[in-house]
């Protein structure tokens, strides 16, 4: 047991993500990482060597769209699951106005957040729209099955859109992963499930108030 886990045992803990949510999330992660590695190989010559991880260029080209189908399916389940908690509210605009205070550890000045704060909601929206556009443009680009099914102008636009949205998604993934590392306790929440009351007080105080009121 690490020192943090010992502390967690004696304190109140709250389930941040249940087992089903965690499994769902990590299935999306596995797909997204594999798609990023194979996709970067097709996007820029500097990364073509990544196709070796998939057994060569032909194999990477063949498997990439199938992983995309699995991601689209698993993300749809996750999107439905987290949709309601990610609806944008007026408070989120105010929270976002304090983003400078957030990144500079001046949390006393930041408005209280619900289960997801405004930045997390933005990550959700970018993922939501990029998965939809990547899936649809990916179908148009799927040479083996749909190579002749779409007009050439649409195929060209799909190529541009697929690459552009993938770049936006990768940048968002970098921000998302960094935020989880930076805000200590987040990785544990998504790998094991629980967070402490103090963690919720610090990051999602409005949600903590609702939880405490609900537990009475």
């Amino acid at each position, binding site marked *: 047991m690490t020192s943090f886990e010992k502390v967690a045992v004696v304190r109140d803990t709250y389930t941040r993500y249940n087992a089903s949510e965690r499994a769902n999330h990590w299935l999306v992660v596995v797909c997204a990482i594999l798609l990023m590695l194979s996709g970067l190989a097709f996007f820029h010559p500097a990364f073509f060597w990544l196709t070796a991880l998939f057994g060569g260029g032909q194999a990477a080209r063949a498997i990439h769209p199938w992983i995309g189908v699995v991601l689209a399916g698993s993300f749809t389940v996750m999107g439905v699951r987290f949709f309601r908690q990610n609806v944008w509210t007026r408070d989120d605009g105010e929270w976002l106005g304090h983003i400078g205070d957030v990144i500079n550890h001046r949390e006393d000045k930041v408005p209280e957040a619900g289960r997801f704060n405004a930045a997390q909601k933005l990550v959700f929206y970018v993922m939501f729209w990029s998965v939809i556009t990547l899936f649809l443009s990916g179908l148009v680009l799927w040479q083996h099955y749909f190579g002749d099914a779409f007009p050439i102008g649409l195929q060209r636009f799909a190529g541009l859109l697929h690459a552009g949205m993938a770049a936006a998604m990768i*940048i968002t993934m970098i921000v998302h992963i960094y935020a989880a590392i930076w805000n200590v306790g987040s990785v544990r929440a998504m790998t094991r499930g629980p967070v402490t009351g103090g963690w919720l007080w610090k990051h999602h105080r409005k949600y903590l108030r609702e939880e405490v009121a609900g537990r009475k």
Partner: protein
Amino acid sequence: MATLQSLDIRNRSASTATPPGVRQDLEVAKLIDVSKCIGCKACQSACMAWNDLRPDVGINAGTYDNPDNLGPAAWTVMRFAEHEENNRLEWLIRKDGCMHCSDPGCLKACPAPGAIVQYANGIVDFVQENCIGCGYCVKGCPFNVPRISKTDNRAYKCTLCSDRVAVGQSPACAKSCPTGAIVFGSKESMADHAQGRIKDLKSRGYQNAGLYDPQGVGGTHVMYVLHHADRPGLYSGLPNDPSISPAVALWKGALKPLSMIGMGMALLAGLFHFVTRGPNEVTEEDEENARKLKGRDAA
């Protein structure tokens, strides 16, 4: 044929290194004089024979085009167009196939290193063992030429008989043409030859006769003499002013460095934020506040 010295490579797909450029190579071109073509398809047969291609037997689509389209095993197809002008029927027969652009959209779009090469003599060649079958060359091509095989998932098209040219022979189609409608030589001499043909056509009433060597793709190494050079579309949809699509140019141009910079900046921003601000850790005070909140509510 990429390693033959007589075929130095000028451009290689998905490769950033500077290609060898010391030796001066002669630019070659094939000139197809549409006004001399009789539609005998000897060029198609010669292409199949030399390149060992046997396309599947297809169906008659109601035209003389046979097969009715280019395919992985049909690198050239005669396209027959009926055109009426001055109360006369003109049978415009165009030998379709790769144009071997100076600025090849297929090569620009290709993500597989060395799957598409452009030799110093101007020939654009597909190297099938490096091809991954993504079909991006199809999107890059302004002439709708590359075809992906469903059996081996690799792209095929006319090679301009690069193997013959490498040893000083003319392409099989040019060799077999019975009317001299297809001729092969240096690009310069082919342009000269075309001027003679255009003069002759103009003297016979084709005032708009001209050479098709579209500059939107930097010129081509397969050129046409057309009786109606002002309307290339008459010849089974030959594009008027072909160029690489802006969508492909952006996708394969500015988007690449911009995305790389964006990803790099995101990684560096994370690194430097962490080393200057450090991790955001929950304090004992936070835990105490949470306990108080719960205690107050419970009370």
